């Protein structure tokens, strides 16, 4: 994986990184097999990326659909996303420091970061390849409207675009606007139109047919 993280973090001195026992063993295997020439990390990434939409429970869509239909839950989600989502229990679990940011007609939110560990994959599945690429990150900060245009998203000129830079300490989930024409839809049906990209802010939910 590419690591070109260059933004400033505010660290607590006592905090260091952690990998689970399983993750340590997987990294050890990859290191040893790469050193001995049995695998090529780029080829491994390519295989994993082929499954990017097949990794992780992708519970974000259900969380968004619930926020669209349940105003009390939406308020809790915007207040403290980690607490609100973990309180659902049966639907999803998520790590600490998840912040939900709401799109409105006045403001569109977009999330950037190049670090895999910053990405709430348990909500969104695996990050797409471009998300980790440095051109996306640097352009997203300088020219968010241009990046969105490349993704086929054109926003009204008076919609402000806010770019959130995620770190391991704070990760973001965009709460997209509920599309018109979906009145009366069930949570399940709504969840189907919530795309991953709409929860990163580089896309919009699929339009109602």
């Amino acid at each position, binding site marked *: 994986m590419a690591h070109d993280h260059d933004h400033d973090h505010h660290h607590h001195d006592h905090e260091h990184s952690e990998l689970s026992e399983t993750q340590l063993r997987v990294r*050890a295997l990859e290191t040893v097999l790469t050193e001995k020439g049995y695998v090529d990390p780029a080829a491994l990434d390519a*295989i994993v990326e082929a*499954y990017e939409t097949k990794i992780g429970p992708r519970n974000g869509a259900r969380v968004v659909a619930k926020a669209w239909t349940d105003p009390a839950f939406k308020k809790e989600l915007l207040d403290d996303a980690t607490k609100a989502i973990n309180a659902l229990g049966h639907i999803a679990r998520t790590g600490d420091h998840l912040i939900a940011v709401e799109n409105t007609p006045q403001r569109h939110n977009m999330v950037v970061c190049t670090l895999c560990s910053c990405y709430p994959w348990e909500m969104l599945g695996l990050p797409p390849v471009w998300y980790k690429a440095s051109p996306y990150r640097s352009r997203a900060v300088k020219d968010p409207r241009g990046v969105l245009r490349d993704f086929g998203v054109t926003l009204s000129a008076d919609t402000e675009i806010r770019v959130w830079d995620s770190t391991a300490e704070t990760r973001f989930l965009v709460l997209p606007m509920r599309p018109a024409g979906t009145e009366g839809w069930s949570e399940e049906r709504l969840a189907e139109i919530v795309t991953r990209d709409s929860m990163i802010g580089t896309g919009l939910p699929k339009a109602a047919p």
Partner: protein
Amino acid sequence: MPNATAMQAAKAVPGIPQDEDGPVFNEPWQAQAFAMTLALYDRGLFTWGEWAATLADEIKRAQAAGDPDTGETYYSHWLAALERLVAEKGVATRETLHRTRDAWDHACDRTPHGQPIELRASDFHE
């Protein structure tokens, strides 16, 4: 489907969690373990028959040791089978794997939260 070897594996190895398009994973490390297995198969290190037998043996062992057998632990057994075949085929000893695992652990300890974790030679010496 992007990878022919993956489709072959999904047919030849019992129990791989999948949907209509092929394998699905709960966590990124599972896909990484799967990808390494495909790469080693492509290198001719083992056949799918051999892989399936080793995996079945690891599952049997884990169940004898009290694994709940819910399917959630499938990729833990997968990882154990991968480590075992890598050792049995003489690619890397268990000691090497263990030393490298400890080095990664050390790298984690010295890496501040939020920074990429990278392995250095010095991680092997403590």
